[in-house]
């Protein structure tokens, strides 16, 4: 009996240790980025490293905020992420609803076409888009970026919403139809309330995807009007009087934190919804 108990105890400790190692592997690099941003002067860069610093300063944040248009970049980032997530949600909801509830000829073709088109990576479309954007004067504009942000979200969003709508039993709508509800009323009063959790999740995921977009702005955003926060990373390198590496790394870390904290807060706050959203999209 005691050996069994001991075995159980040992297993629990082992499991706890495993969880600890896992958490450390994830958190250490993140903690290290924070350290690089907050520790005053070259104090972090000792060999061996100082993990528990005594001097904290906001000097790097002041540096980058003073010399780069960070607020404008943040505004652009928020605008693009929010607007693209909302537009994608609305037009994908309409499409998904039509695909599931109206068995129109070609409904499956649309779904498969969307999936196939998502197999065309941005690298195989970016050069003609670049030429097209120059002719259409869409280079370096928020609306130009918005078009591409939304485009990237459409296939997955449609597929996930289709799978959500399919889970709503048709009988609920049939009952409403007997009562004389029309298409739009049915969508608005019957389907949408049932879909709300799924819509919220998909909106969150799309916001994070939009926030993290880098390749599209790298090619199409050339100035302050449309650059996003992640692009300030490399710009932060040349900020400040010193060309010391700790200066560069510190500045870049400050930008990294500004670019990361919003999505971290969302993730921590909506962990459950995001987890459900990711797995439901894949398993269905």
């Amino acid at each position, binding site marked *: 009996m005691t050996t069994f108990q001991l075995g159980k105890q040992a297993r629990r400790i082992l499991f706890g240790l495993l*969880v600890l190692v*896992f*958490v450390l*592997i*994830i958190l*250490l*690099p993140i903690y*290290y*980025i924070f350290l*690089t941003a907050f520790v005053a002067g070259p104090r972090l860069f000792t*060999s*061996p490293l100082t993990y528990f610093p005594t001097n904290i300063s906001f000097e790097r944040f002041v540096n980058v905020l003073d010399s780069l248009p960070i607020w404008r970049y943040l505004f652009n980032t928020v605008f693009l992420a929010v607007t693209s997530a909302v537009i994608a949600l609305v*037009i*994908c909801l309409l*499409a998904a609803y*039509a695909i599931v509830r109206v*068995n*129109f*000829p*070609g*409904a*499956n*073709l*649309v779904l498969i076409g*969307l999936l196939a088109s998502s*197999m*065309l*990576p941005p*690298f*195989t*479309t*970016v*050069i*003609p*888009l670049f*030429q*097209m954007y120059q002719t259409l004067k869409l280079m370096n504009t928020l609306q130009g970026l918005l078009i*591409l942000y*939304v*485009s990237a979200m*459409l*296939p997955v969003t*449609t597929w996930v919403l289709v799978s959500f709508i399919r889970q709503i039993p048709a009988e609920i709508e049939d009952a409403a*139809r007997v009562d004389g509800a029309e298409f739009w009323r049915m969508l608005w009063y019957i389907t949408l309330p049932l879909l709300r959790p799924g819509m919220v999740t998909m909106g969150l995921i799309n916001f*994070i995807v939009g926030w*993290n977009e880098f390749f599209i702005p790298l*090619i199409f955003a050339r100035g302050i009007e449309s650059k996003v926060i992640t692009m300030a*990373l490399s710009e932060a390198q040349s900020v400040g009087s010193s060309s010391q*590496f700790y200066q560069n790394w510190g500045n*870049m870390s400050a930008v*990294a934190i500004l670019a*990361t904290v919003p*999505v*971290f807060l969302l*993730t921590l706050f909506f*962990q459950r919804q995001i*987890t459900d959203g990711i*797995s439901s999209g*894949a*398993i269905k």
Partner: protein
Amino acid sequence: MSSITTTTPTKQPIARSRGLSLRTKQILLAYALVAPVVIWRLFTTIYPFIATLLLSFQDNSPIRRKAEYIGLENYEQLFQDLRVRESLGFTLTFTVISVTLQILLGLGIAELLNRRFRGRNIVRAINLLPWAMPAIVIGTAGTWIFNTDYGLVNDIIWRLTGNRPLWLVEAFTAQLAVVLIDVWKNTAFVAIIFLGGLQGISGELYEAAKIDGANGMQRYRFITVPLMLPLILSMTIFISIFRVLTFEVIYALTAGGPGSATSVLSYAVYLEGFRVLNFGYASSIAMLLFVIVLVMGIVGFVFLRRAVERL
């Protein structure tokens, strides 16, 4: 499948108004609702993709002010280009190694996150952090995380072994660094999907097996693995395609170096297209990338179907 595409008349009474049946009106409305998504994708992916295909047969460069048809010359150059060959090689090795690690670790982490323990929700949230973070941020931070003298990784290795390997300077270690960052960043996503799969397995199966005297390993081997296999296989294809398209980490961490040891095809398209401004040649590299994605998609799909059916 066919039942969905055929126009079966609905049970509703056909109300005639303005000469159109209710069913026809519904179908027209459905087309109108689908149109934005379809048109949006046509203009932003299908059309530019076809244009890329056409560009790949051209000598096209805005700085040389050239745009002329040259047949297959780009492709001939492509197969002799050492840089492209190296990029192709690393794209494939990187994909195989990173995907293998992510699938194995993802299964382990999913199992971990599926157990009941105090603070599980917090650990699940922590697991998501690398997924939520912009890839370019961790790629950039990687340049000092892997620094020889002051980097986090070498600090830990030094404390354990007394050595300080040169990470980004040598080909093999630079490639390893790229893999490590990719695994760190993306395994969370795989783990979450596997967690969803594990939660879908009925607890009764495990109970029944327990009563029949199966131990933990046996239960894993004969219940978990077979039931998870379709998901594992489809995830393998899915994340493989994503790995082939990796860009940010390479761009920020190594810029393809040292030499072109860590260059991937997507990065080669970027360099050739937007640094050298050689649109024609860059397009032919993009088409090579597309063919790889396509082959992976088709082969994966066909083989998986068969593998799943055999179960």
